[in-house]
Structure formats: structure tokens, C-alpha cells
């Protein structure tokens, strides 16, 4: 596809520095009020968690047969959110996709904080959180090691690896930008950015090894991102429970993760580009491309829903069919249909190019996708447990205020951390934007059109 590139889209290196460093200026009162609001919600969530640790899981809505519900839904949701960052930063880097430069740092930051948030939920879900270390390959007093055949142990390895690699990828990619910030800062900020820059001066030696290490890290992160959500899906698929025991789960979860992750990138970028005045750095072209990914993933996810339903019908398994019947038409069937509307129907509006570049419409659609993808995980996890092999045991889950407020707190924690990062560290990659300028100038010289 070709699009017109206005002359003013080819800024100078100095323009890029000014634009990005301008974001990192001293924050005003409104910013601090927002951060304080976020962390006060986190404080409430921490207090409720402390009460839960003291009184036990009875303060939640968890009871037989739905012993996994909101907390595990949140875990899967946040791990999924993380995936878009690695998709945009690593996979599109390997494909040399040029449009990623404006948005990848924000997506990568989102990845790190989303994995950090996700990692909290298995802990919050534990009745005895102080025994968390039992997941580590560490023998107990009877010299028994963890069972490496358990997907929960795979999860511990996958999520901790993902957190480590995401953090390394983010902070390593930020080194040249931190050096630019260091050279333009004074006082404590100079020292602060100097810590992240680690003495980077853009020398021949530094670039030579940096380029190779970054490429290899992107190459390692790419299969990792696929594996992590596959492993998360196997937490369910390895169980025998109807509604969980399915071979389609790994690709289905990975597709859903990219879908929800890119939607959340849009949700965050639209207000961010407006409030931070960076419409020139994160342009409608970037947003249009992100919207196209959401549309594509919506179609993949819709296809997965159809496949899952078809296989249930085709298998002839009565118990599986009953689980799905209850999922569609049971007491909480409305959640399934809201999910279908949010994930399969509403994103179809993105077929319209005008809606893709209408920021209000795009933002609203991205919110619906976030809601839909959270519900998808809830419907699979809690909905399948509610209708197990024994009808006498059936029972639907209702969340308590503890779970609701801890969920709200997790969003506040994520948004608070993201806001602090966006204000104090380069949320847009100056180095890669500058690299893009060279290409943009060449494109303009060739006749003012760009193929993408």
C-alpha cells in the first residue's frame, strides 16, 4: 500500500530529540495527582490482599467447584497484554518493519509492567503465599523436587524468563537514548540518565557489539513470546476438564494475547500522544497500522471460537457439548455473548479506513476489545470449572469486593508505573526514529510516496 508522506513528516534529528526530551520535562501537579490516585488504589488493593492473607481465601468468591476465577483470569489477561510489546519490538524488528519505530518503546514498556503485574496474581491467588518458593527447583525436607511434568512449574520458568528477557530487551534498547538524554540534561537528571546509559558514547566498538546483541536478543524473544502464552494455555489444556482440554489452546491463546495486547497499546497511546503532544512522533500512520493488527487478530480469534465450537460438536463428547451449551446459554451465558460482540463484531468496524484513523472511535473499539478479552479468559477459566463432570457440584462464581478491588488495583499499578516511565524515561525511541528519518528522506526524494 502506498501513502502520501507530507514534507513536514521528515523532521531533523534535533526535532526528534526536542520532541522526545520535551516529554521528559518536569511534571506538573496534574501528573502527580494522577500518579497519587493510581497508587492510592494500589494501596487499597494491598490492604485487601493483606486481609486475605490474614483471614484466608474465604474472603474471595472462590468456592468449589470454581477455585480458579478472577485472579487467574487476571494472570492470563496480563501475560497476554505483554505479548504485543514483544510482537511490536522483536518480531517486527526482525521483519525490519519501519512503522514500529514510533510505538515500540511504549509497547515494550507495557510488556515489562504487564508481566510484572501478571506475576503478582499467582502469588495473590495462593492461600499461603509464603510457600511460593516451592515452585523453584529446590528440594523440600523429604528431598522431593518440583514435578517438572506439571504445567504450573513450566509457567514459573516461562514467566520468569519472559520477565527477565523483556527487561533486558527494554533497558538494552534504551541505552543510546539514555545517552542522548544524559547529554541534554543537567543536575540529578544527568546522573539518572547516566546510570541507564552506562557510559554509552556511540563509538564504533559499542555500536558493533550492540547491533549484534540486540538482533540476537530479538531473535531469542520471538520464540519466547510464542512459548510463554502456549505454556500459559497448557495450564488449562493439560487438565482433563471439559472446556479446557483442547489441542487448539496454544495458538488460540497466542492469537488472543496479541489481539488484547495491541488493543491495550492503542488504548494507552491515544491519550498519551495527545497529552504529551507527540502527534508528530506517533502519527496516524502508526495508529492505522496498529488498528490493522487488531482487525487481523480479531478475525483469527473469531475463527478460533468457531473451530473450538465445531470440534466440540464434531467430537460427539456429550460432557464437552454440555459444557459449551452452558457456556452459550447457561446462567452466565450473557458473558459469552458480550465477549463475542466485543471480540468478533465490534472490531469489524476497523475495516473502514476512516474509523482506523478516527482516534475517538479507535479508542472506544480498543476498550471493547480489552473488555472482551478479559471476559474470554473468565468464561474459559471460571465458566468451565463451574460445569464440571459432576452436575451435583455445578456452581457459578461471583466475585467478592476483595477480588474486584485487587483487579482494579492491578490496573492502577500498571498505569501508575507506565505513567512514571513515560514521564522520566524516553517512551519513544529517539535512535530508531532518527534512523527512520534517513529512510523517510529517501522516500520523499523518490516521489513522496512510501510503500508499507
Amino acid at each position, binding site marked *: 500500500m502506498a501513502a502520501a508522506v507530507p514534507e513536514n513528516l521528515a523532521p*531533523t*534529528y*534535533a526535532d526528534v*530529540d526536542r520532541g522526545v526530551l520535551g516529554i521528559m520535562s518536569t511534571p506538573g501537579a496534574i501528573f502527580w495527582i494522577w500518579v497519587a490516585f493510581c497508587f492510592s488504589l494500589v494501596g487499597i488493593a494491598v490492604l485487601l490482599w493483606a486481609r486475605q492473607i490474614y483471614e484466608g481465601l474465604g474472603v474471595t468468591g472462590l468456592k468449589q467447584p470454581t477455585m480458579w476465577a478472577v485472579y487467574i483470569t487476571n494472570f492470563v489477561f496480563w501475560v497476554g497484554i505483554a505479548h504485543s510489546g514483544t510482537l511490536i519490538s522483536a518480531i517486527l524488528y526482525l521483519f525490519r518493519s519501519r512503522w514500529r519505530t514510533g510505538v515500540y518503546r511504549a509497547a515494550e514498556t507495557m510488556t515489562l509492567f504487564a508481566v510484572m503485574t501478571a506475576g503478582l496474581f499467582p502469588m495473590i491467588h495462593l492461600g499461603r503465599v509464603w510457600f511460593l518458593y516451592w515452585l523453584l*527447583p529446590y*528440594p523440600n525436607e523429604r*528431598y*522431593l*523436587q*518440583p*514435578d*517438572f*511434568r*506439571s504445567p504450573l*512449574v*513450566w509457567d514459573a*520458568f*516461562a514467566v*520468569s*524468563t519472559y520477565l*527477565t*528477557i523483556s527487561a*533486558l*530487551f527494554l533497558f*538494552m534498547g534504551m541505552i*543510546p537514548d539514555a*545517552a*542522548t538524554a*544524559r*547529554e*541534554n540534561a543537567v543536575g540529578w537528571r544527568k546522573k539518572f540518565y547516566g546510570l541507564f546509559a*552506562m*557510559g*554509552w*558514547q*556511540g*563509538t*564504533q*566498538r*559499542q*555500536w*558493533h*557489539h*550492540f*547491533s*549484534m*546483541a540486540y538482533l*540476537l*536478543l530479538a531473535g*531469542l*524473544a520471538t*520464540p*519466547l513470546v510464542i*512459548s510463554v502464552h502456549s*505454556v500459559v494455555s497448557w495450564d488449562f489444556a493439560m487438565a482433563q476438564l471439559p472446556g479446557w482440554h483442547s489441542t487448539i489452546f496454544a495458538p488460540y491463546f497466542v492469537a488472543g494475547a496479541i489481539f488484547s495486547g495491541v488493543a491495550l497499546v492503542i488504548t494507552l497511546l491515544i491519550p498519551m500522544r495527545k497529552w504529551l503532544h507527540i502527534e508528530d512522533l506517533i502519527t496516524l500512520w502508526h495508529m492505522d497500522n496498529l488498528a490493522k493488527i487488531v482487525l487481523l487478530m480479531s478475525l483469527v480469534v473469531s475463527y478460533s471460537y468457531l473451530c473450538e465450537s465445531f470440534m466440540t460438536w464434531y467430537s460427539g463428547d456429550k460432557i464437552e457439548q454440555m459444557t459449551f451449551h452452558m457456556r452459550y446459554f447457561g446462567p452466565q451465558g450473557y458473558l459469552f455473548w458480550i465477549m463475542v460482540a466485543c471480540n468478533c463484531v465490534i472490531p469489524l468496524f476497523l475495516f473502514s479506513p476512516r474509523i482506523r484513523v478516527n482516534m475517538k472511535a479507535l479508542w472506544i473499539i480498543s476498550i471493547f476489545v480489552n473488555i472482551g478479552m478479559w471476559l474470554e479468559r473468565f468464561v474459559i477459566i471460571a465458566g468451565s470449572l463451574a460445569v464440571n463432570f459432576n452436575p451435583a457440584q455445578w456452581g457459578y462464581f461471583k466475585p467478592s469486593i476483595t477480588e474486584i478491588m485487587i483487579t482494579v488495583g492491578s490496573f492502577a499499578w500498571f498505569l501508575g508505573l507506565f505513567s512514571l516511565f513515560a514521564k522520566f524515561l524516553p517512551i519513544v525511541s529517539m*535512535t*530508531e526514529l*532518527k*534512523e527512520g528519518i*534517513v529512510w523517510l528522506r529517501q522516500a520523499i526524494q523518490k516521489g513522496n510516496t512510501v510503500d508499507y
Partner: protein
Amino acid sequence: MIIVGSFDDQELSARAIAALKKARIGEISWFSPIPPEHMEEVSHEKKSRVRALVLTGGIIGVLSGLAITIGTSYEWSLVAGGKPIISWPPFIVICFELMILLGGISAVTSFLINARMPAFDTAAGYQPRFGSDHFGVVVRCEEPDRTRVESILRESGAQEVLLEAA
């Protein structure tokens, strides 16, 4: 002596490096604010050692995964769920994750070691603008070559040519 040429375009600085290499004058190094594809092309760098270290890290990761899973399974050969003591498919997951983890950590540490970072000293010829919007070409040469180096840098499009004491 050290002569520093400052350029506002990567291609011009690459042109200067190529011309200096052709003239075989002094020892050349450079600074860049962006990934320096053109400058690396003309510099004919050796392949980075980071590659071998990442491969080593990945192999150590796989071996660690095998050691942890097989070793702990044999420590107390307990049959769980009727599965073999050495169950390869689940163990591959652990090996894969450790391969990525140690490969990734090796990538970053080998980059830092090879790039000699954290760097506490300023490299010869470095100027703060080389971190923002200018490319620097630095030539270490003897006094008799000074005029030739300066003229090559200027002819290649240097905006400014400065002299620094070695």
C-alpha cells in the same frame, strides 16, 4: 594528534571513512547517534564475538535444563500419573526456557564486556552532539599527515574539523 571531523549526515561520514581508509592515513574511529549501517559497511569490522557467546549461553541453558529435570527425577525415581521417570516432552519446555534465558543474559553481558561498558572515561574525540544529531570521524595521525586528513574530511562534507591533543 587527534583530528575530529563532525558530519550531519551518515553517508557523508561513511564517505570520509572510506576515503581515509583508501589513503591509509592514521588510525580511524567514529561516533554515531544512530545504528551506523553505512559506517560499519566501510569500516569492514570483524564479526562480533557476541554471536559465539550467545550460542554458548544457549547451549549451557539447554544442558542446565536437562541436568535439572533429569537429575532431580533420578534423585527420587517417583512415578507420577503413570508417566515415565524421564518424560521428554515436558522437560523440553524447561530446556527451551533456560536456553532463552541464558542466551539472553549472555547477549547482554557479552555486549557489555565486548563494548567495554560501563565506560567511565570519555573516548578520544567524543563530543556530546555525537549522541544527538552529529556523526564524528576521529583520526589519530602524525603531524605531517594533518593537512591531508583535514582536507579529506572537508572534501567529504565535514561541517567542522577540530584538532585535539593526543
